[in-house]
């Protein structure tokens, strides 16, 4: 069985869906030659100029074109090369794409996907390293996918393309080279179902994309110290599998949320708020987040590392949570 990289999982899913449905068309910068991250390799050769379109450096035009084409019956997949560049077309994404169906009372359907490279760790600096799921989560109307492994990359991207709502797919730069053995089956993973990567009793680590690996690594270390850690990969923030999240936290009574977003307002805050409201009675320790620093990402290796989550920071957070003076719900009869 062949190994598939996360990078090649992108092109594999695109190829699968383009073969399956001729309404699927690709649009973006430098994608005909395979893309700056080599995530669209071979697609131009296979599907030709009517299916793969290279654009000027015009992100608003890219998203607008995808939106208009979706209105007219196509299923476009637009590439925004780096998630940071969403800022240059945020009006189209947040004010138009996200709102068109609702504002028109359901007259407009936008089956489109926007995908691109997300996240830090490679020294790309403050304008090419941001992890921006939180921007999207601020905007009702966008589905948000952030895969942590090649299988999910392929399967969730395929599901996103088949979905009738606009979906933003965040491809993590630091995962592009990771690989996994995948069967010859169709790539398809439904959006909205979290994955329990590791079962544990003591504490739930809530993770997404690149932080899933960090949590697994931390869990291994903590196991050695006798702490039994559950790792939950949310996979998609919208739709959110809040049921799986709450079930896990209710069971362990403790949660550490590990996000690459800046802690000031990352997706982890949204998760913490849900837990604090809906699983409060089962919590025995403070909810802790391990987040990206509240600074633009610096370039020098030592500085960038300092500003990002890491397995070490996760281990430390879990140890704190486990050491927290326990609380138990006050029994009804005592209250």
């Amino acid at each position, binding site marked *: 069985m062949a190994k598939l990289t996360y990078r090649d999982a992108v092109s594999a899913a695109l190829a699968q869906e383009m073969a399956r449905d001729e309404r699927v068309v690709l649009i973006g910068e430098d994608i005909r030659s395979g893309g700056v991250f080599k995530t669209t390799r071979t697609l131009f050769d296979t599907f030709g100029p009517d299916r793969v379109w290279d654009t*000027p450096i015009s992100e608003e035009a890219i998203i607008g074109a995808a939106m208009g084409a979706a*209105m*007219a019956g196509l299923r476009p997949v637009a590439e925004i090369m780096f998630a940071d560049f969403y800022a240059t077309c945020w009006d189209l994404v947040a004010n*138009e794409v996200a709102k068109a*169906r609702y*504002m028109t*009372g359901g007259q407009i359907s936008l089956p489109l996907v926007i995908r691109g490279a997300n996240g830090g760790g490679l020294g790309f600096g403050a304008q090419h390293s941001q992890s921006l799921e939180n921007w999207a989560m601020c905007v009702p109307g966008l589905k948000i996918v952030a895969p942590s492994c090649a299988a999910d990359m392929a399967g969730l991207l395929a599901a996103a393309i088949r979905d009738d*709502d606009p979906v933003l797919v965040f491809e993590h730069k630091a995962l592009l080279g990771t690989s996994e053995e995948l069967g010859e089956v169709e790539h398809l993973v439904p959006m909205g179902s979290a994955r329990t990567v590791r079962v544990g009793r003591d504490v739930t680590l809530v993770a997404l994309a690149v932080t899933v690996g960090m949590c697994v690594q931390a869990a291994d270390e903590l196991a050695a110290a006798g702490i039994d850690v559950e790792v939950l990969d949310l996979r998609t923030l919208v739709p*959110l599998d809040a049921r799986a999240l709450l079930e896990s936290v209710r069971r362990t009574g403790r949660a550490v949320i590990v996000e690459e977003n800046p802690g000031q307002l990352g997706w982890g805050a949204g998760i913490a708020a849900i837990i604090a409201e809906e699983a409060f009675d089962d919590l025995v320790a403070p909810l802790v987040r391990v987040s990206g620093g509240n600074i633009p990402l610096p370039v020098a290796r030592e500085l960038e590392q300092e500003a990002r989550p890491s397995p070490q920071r996760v281990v430390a957070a879990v140890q704190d949570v486990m050491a927290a003076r326990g609380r138990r719900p006050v029994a009804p009869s005592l209250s």
Partner: protein
Amino acid sequence: MSQSQDTLATDIATDLQLFEQMQFLRLFADKVDTLYRQGVTRGPAHLGQGQEAIAVGAASVLRRDDWSIATYRGHAHALSRGAPAAAVLKELLGRVGGICAGKGGSMHITSVEHGYVGSYAIVGAHLPVACGLAWASRIQRSERVTLCFFGDGAVNIGAFHEALNLAAVWALPVVFICENNGYMEYTPIADVIPVRRPAADRAPAYGLEPIAIDGNDVTAVRAAVGTAVDRARAGAGPSLVEAVTYRFGGHSCADPGDYRSPSEVTAAKARDPLLLTRTALVSAGVSDSELDAVRARLEADVQALATEALAAPVHDPVTAWSDMWSDGSASWRN
């Protein structure tokens, strides 16, 4: 209200039809203004008295399945494509039966069924969307053409530039129509551009011909847009048409528009598109009384529309939670 290019004739019957359409738009807008002042509409309303010849003339050369897309000042464009006036008015009043289910309001009137894929309230944002509609025509090998209307103020926003460039490079079947009414909100367009004609003088930057026409002359609009639509349909790519006009009222109903001198407004009203068409019809032999009768009939129609809309119930709050996702629900989580 659309007719295809091959039946494009400048006979009296056609002119009468165009007159009637423009007259209806004028009366409809005047009624909305009245209802706004009575406090029974919801939200802001941007009307187009004085600019009717553009919407009517342009729509008249379209096929049924062509697309139009426009701005918050979009009532005329929706109605010219055949959107039901009652549903539009109910939307403006926030009543059940509104064309966007009460969710869009005045600035987002849309009737996909009639090829009017929407009113956009952020200046310039719909120009790239128009590219996408036209891009689909190319991929689908369809003859469908897209008409995209916007104001003079939109020529300075980035999205205008990106859209014009993409349309030109990809030879997209889209016609961009700049309704140059001389003003943005309160500021004259001349204050913020370094060229004389906001759109026409920029066409060459996209390899396009500069086209500027009298936007108050419905026949001139039909001719210019007709030619551009034919070109687009034939695969010859986009056009940029600047239609010079004037808005008689303020930017929105909330704006008295007193940054313009009374003499400027009076001079503009002498070139009222309704007046121009009416004069042409009268000199072609149509009687004043016939035209007055048209007007009277339409006044009654508009009054009936208002009565119907005002009688419609307000929305059930729970309907706020539909139309969000493709499954009909508004749930983002389980």
